[in-house]
């Protein structure tokens, strides 16, 4: 991970949020439609929010909303153009046991925040067994944990996500999508992060499996006290796992509030449109007038493939 002056990793005081994002902004240079020269695309435009200990915040939006870019900037996979991200220090006494070695300090930032990706089919190394996948993470972060203690911790992590030792010697290709996502969650939890980002983590799963994973995520939050940043386009899913929500449209936050408020009495036109589009018993598709673009956005990039038209 590159060092980034705008990413302040200082200790966050008790009582303060575990994640604080201020005026986050990301501007990309893209080729313009006539292929002559480039222009700016503001993917994320001054986004701010905070997440509290064991809280759960949804970042809702469709493609082009910037929600994934926000998540990636917070995780450190993308550098913000401007703005700050502050994440609370990881717990000093690891649940895995043992003590942290001094070398672990360099790894510390990876113990503050972890992410589960959307595609279960490419987020695990195809050559590694599940055992190796989890064991390697423990070795990396908790250096003086003995072999037995590590094995015990791996067993515990599997239990958390509803898998068992039958799955240890298997490689990802022998697992279903739902099982792979469970492994991905276990792997993320192995680092004992304060914040877990779930980037469309259930979107690629079958409906009957989605429910299992959603229930699982709910259970984990109450058991482990980890905070969730849940990025999704699916409002019904968001309702299950989150307490608060922000809605993004073309890089701008158009609405924020508790999930219940946002879903039952939204104030922004876009949120209403999004809600109307969710299929439910008795739903019928309706045609709507063109949605207005949010005012603060700079030059939109013509020809760029957004699915919203």
């Amino acid at each position, binding site marked *: *991970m590159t060092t980034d002056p705008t990413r302040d990793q200082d200790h966050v005081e008790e009582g303060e949020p575990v994640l604080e994002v201020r005026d986050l902004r990301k501007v990309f240079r893209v080729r313009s439609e006539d292929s002559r020269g480039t222009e700016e695309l503001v993917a994320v435009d001054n986004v701010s929010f905070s997440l509290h200990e064991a809280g759960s915040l949804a970042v809702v939006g469709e493609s082009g909303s910037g929600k994934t870019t926000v998540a990636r900037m917070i*995780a*450190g*996979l993308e550098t913000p153009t401007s703005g700050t991200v502050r994440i609370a220090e990881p717990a000093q006494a690891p649940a895995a046991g043992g003590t942290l070695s001094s070398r672990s300090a360099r*790894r510390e*930032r*990876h*113990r503050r925040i*972890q*992410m589960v*990706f*959307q*595609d279960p089919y*490419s*987020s*695990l*190394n*195809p*050559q*590694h067994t599940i055992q190796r996948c989890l064991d*390697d*993470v423990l070795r*990396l*972060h908790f250096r003086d944990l003995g072999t037995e203690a590590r094995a015990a911790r791996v067993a515990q992590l599997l*239990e*958390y*996500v*509803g*898998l*068992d030792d*039958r*799955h240890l010697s*298997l*490689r990802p*290709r*022998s*697992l*279903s999508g*739902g*099982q792979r996502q*469970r492994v*991905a969650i276990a*792997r993320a939890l192995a*680092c004992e992060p304060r914040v877990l980002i779930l980037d469309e983590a259930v979107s690629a799963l079958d409906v009957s499996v989605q429910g*299992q*994973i959603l*229930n*699982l995520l709910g*259970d*984990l939050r109450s058991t482990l006290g980890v905070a969730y940043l849940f990025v999704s386009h699916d409002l019904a899913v968001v309702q299950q796992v989150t307490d608060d929500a922000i809605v993004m449209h073309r890089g701008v936050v158009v609405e924020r509030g508790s999930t219940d408020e946002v879903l039952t009495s939204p104030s922004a036109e876009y949120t209403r449109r999004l809600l109307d589009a969710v299929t439910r018993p008795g739903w019928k598709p309706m045609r709507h007038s063109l949605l207005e673009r949010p005012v603060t956005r700079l030059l939109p990039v013509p020809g760029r493939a957004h699915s919203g038209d």
Partner: protein
Amino acid sequence: MTVLADPTVVVENAEAQRGRRDYTLAVLVVLIGLIVCAAVLAPWIAPHPPNQTDILGTGAGPSASHLLGTDALGRDIFSRLLYGARLSLLGPALIIAFATLAGVFLAISSVWIGGWYDVLVSRLLDLLFAIPGLLVAILAVAVIGPGLLAPVIALSLAYTPYIARVLRSVALRERQLAYIESSTLIGYSAWTICTRQLLPNVTSLIRAQATIAFGAALVDLAATSYLGLGVQPPTAEWGIMVANGQSSLLNGQPWESVSAGVMIVVVVVLVNLIGERLASRAENA
């Protein structure tokens, strides 16, 4: 209580895991193995010392004591073939070993580092690729002098781009996948990710490429010896034997050239077939 996952393993993939028996591949490998064994055991199985001349028995045809006859200096061709195998196989092995090491390093580092480094390495490889291996070998010999060393060095350089280029595009594709990104996020060092996450997922392709390149390297090396630039007489080696036997060929005694030539062809064909099979397995994985 947490929600339990379904314990059943995905059927079709479980079966594929057990590996599909490829009998043809096994046979090919055994054949090559036999040749390698013969080369290794040459000192023990060769009926005559390779350099033992017999002025009275030159140019003899096949007989009981000389299975393939003798060459212009009366040396036993069969024994020279066996001893020759050692150099003819060792040379390409060294070349490919070096080319693979260098190619893997260059490909993976360019994919990981990207930017100007990637561009620089790519241009360098393009340059190497553009110059025919044989030419480089000839130039090397001109500088260092005849013998095995110069061609091996030159061909090692010449074959590096073969491995590197193919590997680079596959590695590039792998690198985009989520598991590499999540490795970064988990905190593994770049070295660890490249060697323990990325590399294992491209080894099947490396094996395939290296095997195919082996055949080509063998031919190139034999060619340098044929031209008199590589291995020098009286050392036994297939390329030299092809050259030495030419005059006898015109006199009606093809045994030396033909047997050495056939050995080269046989080995190259076997190796190519193996390489092709490995390549299609790598693709299907």
